[in-house]
């Protein structure tokens, strides 16, 4: 296989890959196509091409693989993509915390940690920063712990009129239990 063809294939892979492209993954994608150069050699050629044609991105070596990233000088424009982004992006930890607050509100930090089994400080901070949660009042218990609830922004994002409109667990079970009929 020629270098130009290989360069194009690697470019397609870099565009489509959701995680850094490793040598192993590259080989798997190439299947039985032969002969194939080592990934780092192809990357080097491609990198030179991007640099010569003044592309706004380059190939970054990261976590044992390669990924397309934008050049630092475009950072001021790119960050505009993530301010009030249309899509909600959260870590698994933050999602778990959000799920517990949604269904159990109002809750204290202790309530959340009892269910998750791990400290949830930083998730709570992230969710407060993103205005998905808010602090409203204090628990009556001895510690007078802060109470967390979901915010108006949370309702708007998910198109809900009130937290009462959250899907009930029973409604989820209906959809999830489809396979039972086949056991008959």
């Amino acid at each position, binding site marked *: 296989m020629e270098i130009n063809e290989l360069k194009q294939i690697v470019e397609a892979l870099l565009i489509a890959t959701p995680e850094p492209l490793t040598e192993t993954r590259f080989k798997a994608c190439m299947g039985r196509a032969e002969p194939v150069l080592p990934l780092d050699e192809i990357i080097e050629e491609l990198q030179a091409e991007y640099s010569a044609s003044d592309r706004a991105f380059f190939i970054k070596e990261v976590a044992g693989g390669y*990924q397309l990233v934008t050049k630092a000088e475009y950072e001021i424009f790119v960050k505009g993509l993530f301010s009030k982004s249309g899509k909600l992006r959260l870590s698994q930890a933050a*999602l778990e915390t959000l799920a517990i607050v949604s*269904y159990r509100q109002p809750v204290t930090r202790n309530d959340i940690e009892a269910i998750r089994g791990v400290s949830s400080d930083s998730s709570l901070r992230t969710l407060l920063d993103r205005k998905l949660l808010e602090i409203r009042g204090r628990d009556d218990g001895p510690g007078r712990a802060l109470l967390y609830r979901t915010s108006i922004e949370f309702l708007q994002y*998910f198109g*809900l009129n009130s937290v009462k409109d*959250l899907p009930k667990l029973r409604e989820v079970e209906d959809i999830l239990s489809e396979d039972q009929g*086949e056991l008959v």
Partner: protein
Amino acid sequence: MMIKPHRIDLEMFEGPLDLLLFLIKRDELNIYDIPVAQITKDFLEYVNLAKELKLHSAGDFVLMAATLMKIKARMLLPIEADGDEEIEDPRTELMNMLLEYKRYKEAAGAFSNLERVERPHYYHIPGAWDPQQEDKTAILEDIKLYDIMLTFRYLLKNYEEPVTHSVAIEEVTMSEQVGFLNGLLQAKTSLKFSSLLEQFESRLIVVVTFLAILEMLRGRQIKVKQTKLFDDLLLSRGAEFGN
């Protein structure tokens, strides 16, 4: 036309409406003037097979069978010229259902074509984690209400009150459900299908009960009435009730 349906045939169909459309096309029937007796007979053959195969959607086929039998019965009634009230063909509602379903079935075909065209293209997704960012935890993109729901469900199952979640698999047989329905109809002259459903916790029991109803319907142990297509079914005692 007495071609015996096979398992493969039945699994081809997305449901009772799909099967009816197939029968209409196969026998070149006029959708404006469906010969109900003929189509009911053919349809029941498939339904019995569905029952034997214990198909997931057997209940939906049973419902349609009951509807067809009801239409058939109504076709046999003499038409009374009752003033100037126009008498509606008992098949009209079914015809409308079939046509409406057919529209969406066709649209599904168009979507399938689009899917084929779009399939070879892959969208660029920027790395799910930002290399500039030190936090290496996976960032989940585009969280939906469904994800929140699933996450909460998952957390409950894993961390909380594990004792209350030890649900025993319920064993239930068709003959048990026949007995159960018999008992209910001995106590009451009629019962609504929806009220039956409410008391069952698992879909397994619901399906077995559907099958029991079909069995009893065939043996004329019960009668099933339905005022409108996909309306609630009303069960009552049949000619052979208790036998």
